[in-house]
């Protein structure tokens, strides 16, 4: 296997992870299932490509613009659909995701800016997008977002979102503004998906609406559930595994998607709560424990309980 091939899989894992992280905030933490996330990725991709190709803006600005436009769309969508409960919200996002794809399927642009020609031709999409997404850049972006997301979910904002997933009425009765927190989750996941869309476009070098079919959206949701709802490390592990799996299964040829499905089903049966089961893999915790063991200090973990019960 050449490095070029492995690098490709890694870049794909990186931007997919960004989408899954965003979706994890919405689905894993706030408890709302979205089946239209490919639509946000699509918007982000197109906007960033228009920025870099038609307006000659830098790559970073393109990514940011893609993310922001996607976020604004997410906010608008949230305004309309967030009052819907459970399955109804699901159906609404599914419809919007498909609608976005169909709009780009029928969108024809032919701009001449500063003497340069920019063509966007419906289902044919955009070709010769500059290849700006390298492994280094995607890794830096994704690490920043993983850290930021884990900080966010470990704050009062993350706890309020979890409360909504756990019991919406109790959350409301605890004085939590459930609508605005759902809105926050929606905006953030749309932002992540938009940025990832820009990375995707500048990695493949072309954009077509059919890259953003509904199956993509369901794939992202599967990754969130596969890793375990409400776990950032779960999302990371789940995404990397599920991105690499189809490639590893190339050996079995046409059967690879069958095996892919089988692997997902087996995991769901063996670990019904997802790989991490809603828990975080705390590296610091284990390192701390190991070093203390090596230094022969007393185990710090089962603290004060015994003393209290003795009193």
């Amino acid at each position, binding site marked *: 296997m050449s490095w070029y091939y492995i690098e490709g899989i890694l870049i794909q894992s990186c931007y997919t992870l960004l989408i899954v992280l965003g979706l994890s905030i919405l689905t894993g933490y706030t408890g709302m299932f979205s089946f239209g996330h490919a639509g946000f990725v699509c918007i982000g991709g197109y906007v960033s490509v228009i920025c870099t190709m038609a307006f000659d803006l830098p790559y970073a600005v393109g990514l940011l613009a893609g993310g922001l436009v996607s976020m604004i769309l997410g906010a608008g969508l949230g305004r309309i659909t967030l009052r819907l409960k459970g399955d109804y919200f699901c159906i609404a996002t599914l419809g919007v995701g498909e609608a976005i794809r169909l709009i780009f399927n029928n969108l024809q642009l032919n701009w001449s800016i500063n003497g340069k020609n920019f063509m966007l031709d419906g289902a044919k999409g955009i070709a010769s997008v500059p290849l700006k997404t390298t492994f280094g850049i995607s890794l830096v972006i994704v690490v920043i977002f993983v850290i*930021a997301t884990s900080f966010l979910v470990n704050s*009062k904002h993350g706890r*309020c979102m979890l409360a909504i997933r*756990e019991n919406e009425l109790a959350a*409301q009765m605890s004085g939590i503004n459930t609508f605005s927190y759902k809105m926050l989750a929606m905006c953030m996941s749309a932002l992540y998906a938009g940025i990832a869309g820009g990375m995707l476009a500048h990695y493949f070098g072309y954009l077509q609406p059919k890259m953003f079919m509904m199956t993509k959206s369901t794939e992202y949701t599967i990754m969130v559930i596969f890793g375990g709802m409400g776990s950032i490390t779960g999302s990371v592990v789940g995404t990397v595994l599920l991105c690499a799996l189809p490639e590893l299964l190339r050996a079995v040829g046409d059967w690879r998607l069958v095996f892919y499905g089988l692997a997902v089903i087996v995991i769901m049966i063996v670990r019904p709560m997802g790989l991490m089961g809603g828990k975080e893999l705390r590296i610091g915790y284990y390192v701390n424990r190991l070093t203390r063991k090596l230094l022969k200090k007393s185990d710090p973990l089962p603290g004060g309980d015994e003393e*209290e*019960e003795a009193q």
Partner: protein
Amino acid sequence: MNERIRDEIVLELSHVTKRFGGLTAVGDVSFKVRKGEIFALIGPNGAGKTTIFNLITGVYALTEGEIRFLDKCVIARGGVTYDADGAQIPHGKALQLKPYDIMSKGMARTFQNIRLFKSETVFNNVLTACHADADYNVFQSLWRWKAGPKWLTKYRTQEAKLRAKTEELLKIMGIWKYRDMIAANLPYGQQRKLEIARALAQAPVLLLLDEPAAGMNPEETMALMELIKEVRDRFDLTVLIIEHHMDLIMSGSDRIFVLNFGKALAEGTPAEVQNNAEVVEAYLGKEENADGHA
């Protein structure tokens, strides 16, 4: 009259009516809860007690009448109000605050069928409810270092306060040793206590308890009543309580309001209510004569 009960009115319901289609769940109910009081709401099953809780907390919208909280603040007003003589005054605008808005004005409640954040730890359940004490925004929650200007280090300082408060509450309720357990795995009685701890985390003025002793044995019930009195004194609370355990109500509450089929039946001190013929009838049925006829 106890000296901790003050004349200040915390909650006032006037001519509160709630209809679900043709069914009048609560009809023309009025009462006032004074500061420091333990005010009990009793009545047979289906009398509309929990509906009243849901009206006060804004889960249901009011059909008619008015609910005032902390004197000036009107939290819900139905389409029609009444003057002092009980004559109807058509009202211009119906007012209904959102539930979270009402609760953040100084109310907290528990539920008849326990509603915890089930898959979270006991500690996090209470920590979540403390959210109003911290006002850092999303960007401030990303700065985790001690160093930096004061507006940037809000997360660290405020989060430490929330944790200290959570610890204190769990210790008061006697469930500190369960702090790392998942809430759903707690024994039933402790879940009830956790729910009260979570409600106290909101630093309420008025605490609404919906059958806190349901499913508890007599000893546990009396211990719970002592605990409720203790937290009432400690946090200077006013308590509105729905309960079926008569010994708990009769020994613990200052005033009792009896509901039957959504209508007010009686109101008074425990002694007054106990001797009220109508109340006895609603609970035990009519006294029958020797022939077995009513």
